[in-house]
Structure formats: structure tokens, C-alpha cells
């Protein structure tokens, strides 16, 4: 069966304008999502995961964010070249994002109902925007994320609800109308572990029920392993390795992935896991060659001066490292 590419990001660069230059955060990033696929995006905090995802929806702060190069092709159309009407359609029908922190993602001075119903209103064609219909969809959306007492919740302000409930509301906003791609930015990370687990299970169920594709951003490898078909490992704004989830855990290739896997604490003991020495580079003046080179124990001169190409090592496994050149 020929698989259809839903989202195809090609050589994306995102810079932030700051005093004294540009923060070159996302660097030649490429990523594909096939229809119905569950993709994980893994990387440490500050590596540009959220920036990349916001770029897909064009919701980066326009005054400071700058995209010098790259394409974001969604169903054959470049998102970066869309006009206002097309963007509106993309956001209300095509792609929806679930934000990391449900507390800051909900407007504190409007009721859940006001916000949820507005999302629904603008997703519907103008002739279908009747109050009753919008309200029914809102109630239905809350039922889908297993929130009881929907009428009361619609009249509540975010501050009156628990973190878990707010996260469910954020999810319900993303699924009010059928979408083809969901972007979940570390769902539940700001919540406690049991709630986080419930949220992840809910997401998986919704994705399976509607056949939606999903990009799950996480810094937890365990979550990525459970939830996804394929994983992209991101470091300092670039993809360093991509592979089917099982392959990645069995046979990590990139020194960063190897380090990341080794740094997961194991229940079987052995003390605190080792981290990777060093830290994410300064984006104002990133290394010329491989961005991981300063932290890499296996690097040589070439890594200093040249960016490694993305190499196909077979079986859908890709890695951006000179060591795997034949």
C-alpha cells in the first residue's frame, strides 16, 4: 500500500530576532508524517521542538520569529505560503495543537464554554453556526474526553478546574471538529504522573478512534516508546536520528541518541544514570559543523567544519552522523 505523506517539512530554519542578532534555533529540519501515523519527537528542553510545531501552524510570534528557509508541506500545500483564509481552514480543519501547559493555554477571564464554543463556531461553515448546534458539539467534545457534568464545566472559569480537567479541555478543543493531524506538546508534563498517564491513554484512544495522525512531543523516551510508531530524535534544532520506535530502542546509532537512552534511570538500580556532559549550544552563535560536536566524545575534525548529511541506513532508519557513511 503506497503510504500518503500528510506533512512534509523540508529544510526548515526558524530564527528569533534578539538584541545583537538572530537566535538560529531550528536548523535545516526535515520531518515527515504519514497519514494515520503516530510520530514521536524527542529531545531535551530547549532544542526547538515547540518552536517547530508552532511554525507548522504559523503561530510563532510574528514580530520576532523569522523563517529564512524551508517548506512545510501539508497535503501538498506549503503552509508558509498560505493566505489568511487558507490558514484559517488549516487551523480549524487540518491541524490542531495541544499545548504543554493547560493553565497558560486557556484564557483566564473567559469561561470554558465561551472559549470552546468560539473554537467550534469558527470551525463550522457560516450557515451552520447556530447556538444550539455549537453548544451540542461542545457538550459532545467534553464527553469525548470523559469530563462529567458538561454543562457546569462549560460555565466554569479555568481557575475553578483542576489541572487534569484543564488538560482534557485543551484536548477537547483540538478535537471539536475532525482534524487530520494532532500535535501534542508534552501533554500532561505539568501534571502528576497518574493524571499524565490518563491523559496519554485518552490521547491514544482518540487518535485510534478517529484515525488521526499525531506528533507527540516528549522528552520522555518511555512515553515515546509506548505511544508511537516512529520516533524523531531532535538535538539543537536539527533531527539527528529517525527510526521506527522499536528499531530506535534496539539499535540507536547517533551518539546523542545513545547518550539519551543511557541517561534514562532504570528501575533495576545501578545508581543515578549518567547524563550527557555539556549543554545545548548557544543559538546566537551555533557551531559551524555538527551541532552536537562540542558534546560528542567520538567527533573528529570533519564534525567541526561540516554539517553531517542525513544517511539512510536501511529499514526506515536515518541518522545524521559521519560515522555511518559507507
Amino acid at each position, binding site marked *: 500500500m503506497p503510504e500518503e505523506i500528510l506533512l512534509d517539512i523540508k529544510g526548515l530554519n526558524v530564527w528569533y530576532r534578539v538584541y545583537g542578532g538572530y537566535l538560529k534555533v531550528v536548523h535545516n529540519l526535515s520531518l515527515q508524517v504519514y497519514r494515520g501515523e503516530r510520530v514521536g519527537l524527542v529531545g531535551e528542553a530547549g532544542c526547538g521542538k515547540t518552536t517547530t510545531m508552532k511554525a507548522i501552524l504559523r503561530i510563532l510570534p510574528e514580530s520576532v520569529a523569522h523563517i529564512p528557509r524551508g517548506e512545510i508541506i501539508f497535503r501538498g500545500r506549503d503552509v508558509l505560503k498560505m493566505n489568511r483564509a487558507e490558514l484559517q481552514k488549516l487551523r480549524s480543519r487540518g491541524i490542531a495543537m495541544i499545548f504543554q501547559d493547560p493553565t497558560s493555554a486557556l484564557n483566564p477571564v473567559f469561561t470554558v464554554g465561551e472559549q470552546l464554543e468560539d473554537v467550534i463556531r*469558527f470551525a463550522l461553515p457560516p450557515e451552520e453556526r447556530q447556538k444550539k448546534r455549537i453548544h451540542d458539539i461542545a457538550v459532545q467534545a467534553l464527553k469525548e474526553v470523559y469530563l462529567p457534568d458538561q454543562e457546569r464545566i462549560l460555565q466554569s472559569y479555568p481557575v475553578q478546574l483542576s489541572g487534569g480537567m484543564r488538560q482534557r479541555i485543551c484536548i477537547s478543543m483540538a478535537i471539536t471538529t475532525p482534524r487530520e493531524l494532532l500535535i501534542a506538546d508534552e501533554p500532561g508534563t505539568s501534571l502528576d504522573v497518574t493524571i499524565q498517564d490518563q491523559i496519554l491513554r485518552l490521547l491514544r484512544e482518540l487518535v485510534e478512534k478517529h484515525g488521526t495522525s499525531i506528533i507527540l512531543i516528549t522528552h520522555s523516551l518511555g512515553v515515546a516508546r509506548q505511544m508511537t510508531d516512529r520516533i524523531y530524535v531532535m538535538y539543537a534544532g536539527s533531527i539527528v536520528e529517525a527510526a521506527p520506535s522499536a528499531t530506535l530502542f534496539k539499535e540507536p546509532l547517533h551518539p546523542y541518541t545513545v547518550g539519551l537512552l543511557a541517561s534514562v534511570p532504570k528501575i533495576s538500580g545501578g545508581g543515578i544514570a549518567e547524563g550527557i556532559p555539556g549543554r545545548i549550544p548557544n543559538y546566537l552563535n551555533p557551531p559551524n559543523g555538527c551541532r552536537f560536536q562540542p558534546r560528542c566524545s567520538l567527533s573528529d575534525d570533519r564534525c567541526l567544519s561540516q554539517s553531517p548529511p542525513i544517511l539512510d541506513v536501511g529499514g526506515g532508519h536515518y541518522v545524521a552522523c559521519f560515522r555511518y557513511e559507507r
Partner: protein
Amino acid sequence: MDLRSFLLRRVFHSIFVVVGISIVIFCIARLVPGDPARMALGEEAPDEVVERLRQEMHLDKPIYEQYYYWLTGVLRGDFGRSLVTHQPVLQDIKETLPATMEIALVAGVIMVVLSIILGSIAAWYRDTVIDGIIRVMAYFGVAIPGFVVATVFILVFGYYWHVLPVLGRLSSNISVPPRVTGLLLVDSLIAGNMVAFKDALLHLLLPASSVAMASTFQAARITRSSMVDNMQRDFVAAERGYGIPERRIALRYLLKPSLIPTVSVLGLSLANIIETSFLVELIFNWPGISRYGMQAILSKDLNAISGVVVIAGLGFAVANVIVDLVVANLDPRIRLGGVKGA
């Protein structure tokens, strides 16, 4: 906590504030050197007449006893007699207060409308020329005192251009509408006299603008910064991401949370209105309570001073309760009273 108990609590607090103000002003007015009885009667008056007036005013009693007499009078609606106008102070206040209230109300409208519009425009076009122009205007507006603004307004609009009246509340050729509220705008509307309404409004424009100037620009700056702040919040990105149109986000989802600090600051500026009015009323020859109070202070007219200050304090307290209600209405986090979490 429901709105009623919220309101009751605020009113309860306000009572303490007003009583406190009255004690402070009562003491200060009496501690300032100078014998009010002598000042009222003049140098020539015989000593025994002055002494009789002192006894009449209980000035020979200890200060706490004086306060007791004064307070029991006030509670019966008797603020005493003014030594200058020889009328009951309450009567004087009734005559002068509406004129000042009219300025305050028009100034309030100018402040609210202009500060929100200017602040929103500056935020929307932030870091552009437009933002820069509003910023410079704001610096001048905040830095220049109200009485200077008033003088310049009189020169420009009244003297050079002759476009706006600069003295008094009404032109002399306009018949005064029958007094109902004392507010000329309202009275002329009740009388259906549109000519008087227009004339009264024109007379109000310059004094009200002078009074409103500083606070307007201060509030505009606050609006701008809180709006710029909110623009970077996740909920705005989320609302855009869920396909809510830009215009609706700006006019609804961004505006409402951004107005909370604006309203609080405008509430504080109400104190400024009363303060700025003193000089502005003098300059525009406006028969308001601030001018009356100023004269009372200069002639050490004890009852008038206390009366004016208590009325001003009362006005301030009422305005604050209204501001609290507006803020509570805008912000559920305040209305619902410190819900845990968040």
C-alpha cells in the same frame, strides 16, 4: 464568595476609610496655627465677640470633644456653618459639588475611552513609528502638570483659535435649565434643551481634558504593556492555532484580560482628578467644590474644610468600590476569591 458579600465587605472597609480621613483632617485643620474665629470676624472685632464665637464653635473644648460635637452633627446631616459664606456647609457643597462631578465624569469618559484606544493601538503597532509617537505623547502628557495643560488649552483653543469657550459652565446668552441634579448636562437633557446641552458640553471639554490628560496617558501606557504582555501568552497562540480570527482575538480575548490593570490604575487616578481640579477650576473660573475647598483652606474655614474633605473622601471610596466591582467583573480570579491551585 458571591458578589453581594464581596460588595458588603468593600463598603464596610470604605466606612473605616472615610471615618479615618475625617479624624485626620479634623485634627490637621485645628492644629494649624491661626484663630479661625478671629480670622472670620476680622481684626476690628471686639474680644468678647470673638470669644463668644469660639464658644459657639466649641473651640474652647479639647479636640476629641470638638470632634464628638462635629461627628454627631454630621450624622444628623449638619456639617456646621461656613465662616466665609455664612451658609450651612452642606448647602455650599450642594451648590458646588455638581459642577466638579460634571468635570470628573467627562474626564472619566475621556480617560477610559482614550487610554484604551491609544494603548491598544500602541500595542498592536508596537515598536513601529505609531507606537513611538504615542509613547512620546504619553511622556509629555504624564510630565506636564494639569494647570499648565489648562493654560495652554486656554491660549490655543480660546485665545488664538476661538473654537472653544474657556470660562464658566455656560455661555451668558444661554438660559440655565431648571435645576434637578445640578449637573448641567443632565438637567438640560431633562429640560429637552439641546442648545444648553451642547453649550455645557463645549464648556466642559477643556477643563475635563486638562484634568484627564496625565491619567489618560498613564493608563494608555499600562494598557499597552499589559496587552503586549498578553500577546505573548500561550492562550493567544492557542486561540490563533484553533482558527479563531485575528480580529476577534484582538477585540475579545486579548482586550478583556489586558484591561484589568488599566481599570485599577484609572481607579487610582480618581484621586488625581480631585487634586488636579483645584487648580483647573481656578483657571477656568469653574464654580466647583475644589475651588470652594481651596478658599476654605486659605481662610481657615474649619467646617468647610472638614466638609469638603469628607465629601471628597466619600467620593473616592464610592469610586473605589465601583472600580473593584468592574475589576471583579473582568477577572473571575478575583471574583471567585483565591481558588487554590492556578
